[in-house]
């Protein structure tokens, strides 16, 4: 590629990166701005007197620490449990030939398309009958179910990529099926599990609808999205508080993303293939 073109491409890439990152920058900036500067008609993209007032308000007025922990419990449980279940299921559909295999795969695909939100109504009654309303279980259970089909579908590619010769060699060397599964296949598929877990983590961490519908009266079981909206009154939002809460809520996901970034990029390429 010729020089000037590449330069133009690089400049525009940097500009676009700046635009894309701007909302996040503004969020963090507003969280640290003193109240007077946020609610000013001359907003400035910097602040000379950063302080933690908004964070103090968020953590003082609400049990934000507790909600943070609740969200974390939900997301981590969903990620771990659905990854394990999906790994087993993906192994079954890629390493075995059995009746209804194709039917099952199509079912998994169709299951991905089910609009989770439409199921809020029946799930609400189901959770009520299980006595799970107002508990974190009412958030964990549906999210495990909804992240499974996509996880299985994605993991297929990773499980398939492990050569069958390896499996044969393991059996010839006397490994049992279980040993092959957990000591050989699992470590090899692990990068795929990480890429997959990004999606289940996000869907669980971000969940707003289930939290809003199932955690109706017991605020101690609330999660971050709900807590955040307490500061977000339509007429007079406490922008400082909202932005501080948003920052607290976004940071863990950002860290998670940066950690798995490389595997995500390669992982998606691999998964999409199949």
């Amino acid at each position, binding site marked *: 590629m010729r020089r000037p073109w590449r330069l133009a491409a690089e400049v525009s890439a940097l500009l676009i990166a700046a635009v894309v990152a701007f909302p996040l920058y503004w969020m963090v900036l507003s969280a640290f701005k003193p109240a007077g500067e946020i609610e000013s008609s001359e907003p400035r993209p910097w602040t000379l007197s950063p302080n933690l007032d908004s964070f103090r308000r968020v953590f003082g007025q609400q049990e934000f620490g507790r909600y943070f922990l609740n969200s974390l419990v939900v997301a981590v449980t969903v990620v771990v449990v659905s990854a394990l279940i999906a790994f087993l299921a993906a192994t079954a559909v890629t390493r075995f030939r059995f009746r209804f*295999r194709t039917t099952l795969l199509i079912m998994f695909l169709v299951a991905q398309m089910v609009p989770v939100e439409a*199921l809020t109504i*029946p799930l609400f009654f189901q959770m009520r009958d299980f006595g799970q309303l107002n508990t974190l279980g009412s958030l964990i259970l549906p999210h495990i*179910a909804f992240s499974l089909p996509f996880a299985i579908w994605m993991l297929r590619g990773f499980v398939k990529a492990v050569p069958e010769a390896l499996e044969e060699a393991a059996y010839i060397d006397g490994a049992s099926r279980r040993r092959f599964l957990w000591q050989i296949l699992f470590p090899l598929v692990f990068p795929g599990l990480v890429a997959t877990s990004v999606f289940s983590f996000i869907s669980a961490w971000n969940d707003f609808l289930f939290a809003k519908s199932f955690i109706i009266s017991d605020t101690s079981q609330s999660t971050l999205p709900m807590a955040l909206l307490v500061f977000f009154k339509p007429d007079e*939002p406490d922008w400082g508080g909202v932005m501080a809460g948003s920052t607290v809520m976004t940071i863990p996901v*950002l860290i998670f993303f940066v950690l798995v970034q490389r595997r995500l990029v390669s992982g998606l*390429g691999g998964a999409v293939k199949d």
Partner: protein
Amino acid sequence: MTNRPLRGSVPPPGDEQTPKGSGPAATSARAPGTALSAAAGTAVRGGGAGPVPVKSRQAGAARPGSGVGSGVSRGAGRGLGRGPGRGAGVGRKSPLARGGWTPWLYLAPALVVLGGLLVYPVYQLGLISFLEYTQAQVSGGEPTTFQGFGNYATLFKDEQFWQVLLATVVFAAACVVSTLALGCALAVLLTRVRAVPRLALMLAALGAWATPAVTGSTVWLLLFDPDFGPVNRVLGLGDHSWTYGRYSAFALVLLEVVWCSFPFVMVTVYAGIRAVPTEVLEAASLDGASQWRIWRSVLAPMLRPILVVVTIQSVIWDFKVFTQIYVMTNGGGIAGQNLVLNVYAYQKAFASSQYGLGSAIGVVMLLMLLAVTLVYLRLLRRQGEEL
């Protein structure tokens, strides 16, 4: 895929060395075949997809294995059209075919969870949509009565429903098109720049991707706030309110949705482009193909499976947008002008306790997404995709 040809060719236990030995041979013999058929259109998957997982996966040796695996089973799936070399390849499946109950054992947890928390609720959704089900029935004050298609009739007679349906479809379509266009353009841009700008754009995009929908919505609202937002200052719009008008409110939500969903497209397509072997691109440019021609005749066909996946995913996600609309337009906008089906169903069910009506809306959504799924399945099949 049937299991007959596979089962049929299971060698006796002592024979396992033989297929194993013939594995690599079959691989090398078939490899050129795959490459050739890659040029021939539909089978591009075979050639294009093979190297994809290799790039930075630990299981580097996977490429020949998976390539052959899919090649073989595709052959078997088509029935009898098996060349002489393929018999040995099918034999390689031997240890896998003898699963017995094992696959079902592995599947059991997934099936239990999905059955209980997905299939059963879908059934319930359908059931409730045929019932008169309001607060009175929920609290047990009145018995539930079967309504037949009563809820649907009410719904289809309601003018607002049709408005919401139209808005949902148009809004989702606009989101999908913008997301895909932006994502693909930036993916191509990523391949043209050196490491530093690429990393910057990648990190910014990951940041947008990682941002939870609720916080993304609030941040965008602040950015476009009539009193305190920087956007109106920069554009000199005074205290123009973006959420007041129907279209500007939808446009604002669209911006947010595109912002947080283009990274998935960009990263996936970029990974796909990177996985295309450089030799192919070099060969094309040596043959004198222009950049545009390379994109159209080499990259696009090779990336088609990836493009199909991201398109379908985007359709599904954007059709179901809930949080952004709910938060940014405060539950559906002034007089419900920004309602989409999801929010509409929620409002009917949980705000006005008409659970039967809400479920009927849910069923309509379900059917529409099911139609999308069927299109997807057809596309997969036309590509000769092996399930």
